[in-house]
């Protein structure tokens, strides 16, 4: 008797396990569907590439820049603001997704093209590279606390020491 009882318990346990697993698999399939649909919606309906903002320290005496100017600043060719103060350029490491997005959307360049320009200056004694940072938080701190600094962020900054530089 004892044996039958324990077998019953075992069977019901196994049944529950199997049912739960099936349910779990079913839920996974459903949620996967949502993920796929959501992803497709993102791809087709969400504009990609507006997620980068060029930001400057509040001390910067410029409100808007053209593509040419912004390129000249980040390739370290233009070193001074119109008022004469030296531009402090901050950038993220080459492989950072935000750096790639910034190069592509705001400079219409690729990270390897920027790297080429900076390396040629750094290793020939004809210029300096921008200060390279590891994270977006670091970028926010540096631009906020360095007079005449320029950098980029993935969102609008809620810091009064930083403002967005708009495209001309």
């Amino acid at each position: 008797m004892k044996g039958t009882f324990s077998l019953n318990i075992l069977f019901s346990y196994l049944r529950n396990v199997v049912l739960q697993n099936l349910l779990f698999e079913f839920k996974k399939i459903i949620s996967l569907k949502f993920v796929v649909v959501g992803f497709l919606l993102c791809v087709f309906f969400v504009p990609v590439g507006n997620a980068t903002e060029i930001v400057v320290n509040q001390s910067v005496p410029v409100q808007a820049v053209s593509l040419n100017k912004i390129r000249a600043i980040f390739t370290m060719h233009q070193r001074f603001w119109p008022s004469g103060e030296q531009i402090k350029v901050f950038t993220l490491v080459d492989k950072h997704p935000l750096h790639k997005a910034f190069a592509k959307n705001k400079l219409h360049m690729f990270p390897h093209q920027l790297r080429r320009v900076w390396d040629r200056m750094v290793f020939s004694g004809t210029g300096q590279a921008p200060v390279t940072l590891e994270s977006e938080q670091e970028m926010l701190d540096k631009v906020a606390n360095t007079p005449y600094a320029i950098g980029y962020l993935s969102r609008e900054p809620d810091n009064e020491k930083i403002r967005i530089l708009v495209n001309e």
Partner: protein
Amino acid sequence: MNRFLVFCYGLLMSVNVQASFWPEELQTHGFLTQNFFHTSDNNVYGQSDDGISPGLTEIGLNLSYQPFSRLTLSAQGLYRRAGKVDGGNVRLDYGVADLNIFNYQNGRIGIRGGRIKIPFGLYSETRDVAFTNPSIILPQGIYFDRSRSLLVSADGGSLYAEHRTEYGDLSFKFNLGMPLGDNEEIRSAILGPAALGKFEASPAFATQLSYELNGGETVFAVSYMNLKLKYHPSAGDFISAGNTSIRPLLFSAQYNGEKLGLTAEYLYRWNSYKDYGVMPDFQFVSESWYLQGSYRFLPQVQGIVRYDTFSSDINDRGGQRSVSNGLPNHIAYAKDWMLGVRWDITSSLMVRTEYHRVHGTAWLAQADNQDQSKTKQDWDLYALQLSYRF
């Protein structure tokens, strides 16, 4: 060598330790490259024939400091060891004071003084920095390694100007200075293996005008140099005190796309030999060009293919004059097919390998191939490179 490494290590450590005290106006960068070569015949960078030569090592360390906003001081020390041509020594690669004289919204003008890198073609200024080069061995018809000291840096001054327009950016450089001219390979390249004296360079100028579109996506450049060398015979030398002038004109074009890269350069070089006594004065023109294509299969992996050709005298492409001087005719030319792969493991670590099929021996170093009559016309070259940078 060991002392230099210890010095580098010490400097690196001090950079790490003092990172928080390190002023932002002071930047330091460096690189370390080790190359390995194997050839089917002929030797490059040491004994590469029937073996593997680790004979090319390049270590560089630079500092750049901006004491005032318009003044930048920068210097780079370079350790280089290259087969039997260069047994290995540390020297100042560049040491420059750069004064930004005039700035306006679309450009700038400035002057540089000190030991300055020579702007010649697309790669000269950073020719020893593996990360900036397209291949382990640069196209040798233009970026000669054996007589490189004429093309590396010069002591003097430079004027530079940059102007940006809606239709691209113009950049101009004019350098006047004393190239580092005395070198046995230059002597051998000019006068052959039998000469014993020394060459002395005169002040030379190098100038470059370049035009770049879309932040360097497309680059066009023209470079010109005027080199003058005076020969000082040693006692018992059968060659008299002659003069050589070398005037290379180089056209460059490059496209750097997201994945595809295309590069072409064409060199036309006037050479003049005067008053050497044993041979009549003569003038001749050397020519070289190459076509290079690269493709980025993955963000970190690039394939490259190149054809490079050089003729030391366009009126004697087959090398008949070499034969009449008792040297093999294939010393007068070199045609090189190259195939390579580069893998950037991280942004500061890179490994690459390449294969060359070479027809001709024009750019082989005399020091690595003492008996030029034993060199072979058709040969294969395999190279492997490991490079670190920071």
